[in-house]
């Protein structure tokens, strides 16, 4: 098996074996259940779709899963020291980071874009489903690269990620409108809005900006993660 194949297999097995990850499995189901309940209720989707798709899908399900997966693929191994097994091989650090990132994006996309698509179809149409899935994918790329980089840079990646999600995206965006230009959630919603072209999802940013900002963020965060992993130091020991 190739180096990338071995790294990917170890990463997936490690990720799926962590209890923290399994705890999040109900989240996508919650989203689909909320969409189904809304649909069955007979109330017009324009009155509740935003609450389900944006407030639950883009604001909770997507970032939480991306956070657990993004900080888990590499950060957990750095935290418990098992990464030393891989780090004491001549595999280039760029290969390690990119493989872990690919696994993180793949798993997060499967766990978010898929249920978002299903929810979109239930709420309105296949087109809405596709729009939500594409938006979720863009959000996945941005969130996972950011959180993976955080997990290499800091020993407290989950805390910082939660701070970003709750304080920056949850609170500051509503108070200071300029903050939305640096909000991953707004990137995802903007792209969904553009692709779905419906009143049920309304973004405040241009989709072109959202895609470009995501690309810039992904490249910068990945470069940072590779550089920091190259200078990775085991924890301080005095033994």
């Amino acid at each position: 098996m190739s180096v990338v194949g071995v790294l990917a297999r170890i990463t997936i097995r490690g990720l799926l074996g962590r209890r923290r990850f399994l705890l999040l499995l109900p989240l996508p189901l919650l989203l689909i259940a909320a969409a189904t309940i809304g649909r069955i209720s007979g109330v017009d989707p324009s009155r509740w779709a935003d609450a389900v798709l944006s407030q639950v899908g883009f604001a909770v399900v997507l970032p939480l899963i991306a956070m657990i997966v993004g900080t888990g693929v590499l950060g957990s191994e750095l935290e418990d020291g098992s990464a030393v097994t891989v780090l004491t091989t001549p595999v280039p650090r760029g290969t390690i980071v990119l493989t872990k990132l690919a696994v993180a994006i793949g798993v997060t996309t499967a766990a978010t874009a898929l249920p978002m698509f299903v929810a979109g179809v239930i709420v309105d149409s296949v087109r809405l489903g596709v729009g939500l899935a594409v938006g979720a994918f863009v959000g996945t790329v941005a969130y996972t690269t950011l959180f993976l980089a955080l997990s290499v840079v800091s020993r407290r990646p989950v805390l910082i990620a939660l701070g970003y999600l709750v304080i920056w995206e949850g609170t500051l965006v509503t108070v200071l409108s300029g903050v939305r230009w640096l909000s991953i959630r707004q990137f995802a919603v903007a792209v969904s809005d553009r692709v779905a072209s419906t009143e049920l999802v309304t973004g405040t940013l241009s989709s072109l900006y959202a895609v470009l900002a995501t690309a810039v963020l992904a490249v910068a965060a990945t470069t940072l993660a590779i550089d920091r992993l190259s200078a990775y130091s085991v924890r301080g020991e005095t033994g």
Partner: protein
Amino acid sequence: MSAPTVPDTRPDAPARAVLEVRGVSRWFGNVVAVNDITMSIGTGVTGLLGPNGAGKTTLLHLMAGLLQPSRGEILLSDAPVWRNPAIYASLGLVVDREDTYGFLSARELVEATAALHKLPHPRAAADRAIAMVGLGSAADRRVATYSKGMRQRARVAAALVHDPAVLLLDEPFNGMDPRQRLDLMELLQRMGEAGRTVLFSSHILEEVEQVSQSIQVMVAGRLAASGDHRAIRRLMTQRPHEFRLASSDDRALGVALLRLESVTGVELEPPGLLVRTRDYGAFARALPPAARAAGVRLYQVLPADESLESVFSYLIEGGQ
């Protein structure tokens, strides 16, 4: 403090250093874990001896490129080890405290490591490494179910799978039973004889003496001594020591002690005696009978040079 270096006069003494540590220090905040160490490690087995907290693990991490020196540099075959993953093609590391992928079986772990080293036949290399550490049928069980000794052997197999020229091991005998310990000692000796460079840390003098001819002694982050194991032991037991004694009759005890061959000087320093000896072990053995013969009761025996004493006495305790 400069480290006493004992000339290595063995006929098979290492011809050239593979691992060069040049003026390396590493501190964590205000704590200096490794303090201005310079050493050369050549082929064969070398023991890194020191009490817990001496900085052995930090030094091994520095040598393995897993820590950046705060000062100085470390070279492996003339290439810097820091930020240089290429060194791992010829270096294997067995760490004591880090976890490993517990959800893999030892065979999967070693085979994955072989694949990451891009070995042409990872499966065969893994089988060979597992056979070397004697994991046997347990190799197909998940590492998480292993005892500490078995886990250690799985780590050794993973570190050996690419047949590295240099092998670094941090307290490799920890948690092993006597049989496993002996097997690993033999394995390290075979590797040393085959021209590999093996460096392992330990806090037990006997362990180091059994496996390696060459010893580096670390105390409080510094290199305290280096050289042949017999000379190191002599250095530890026969260096000048001072003791403060208190007894029922200091004057009579002083007279009695002056007759001992191991005692080089006695001073009456109220409230007791200051005794100088050149042989710690011989003095320790001779003191009680000498006091008894003089009819003196001993109240207190304290090493006066406390800083290094605790370490050396520790090493000597281990040797008896």
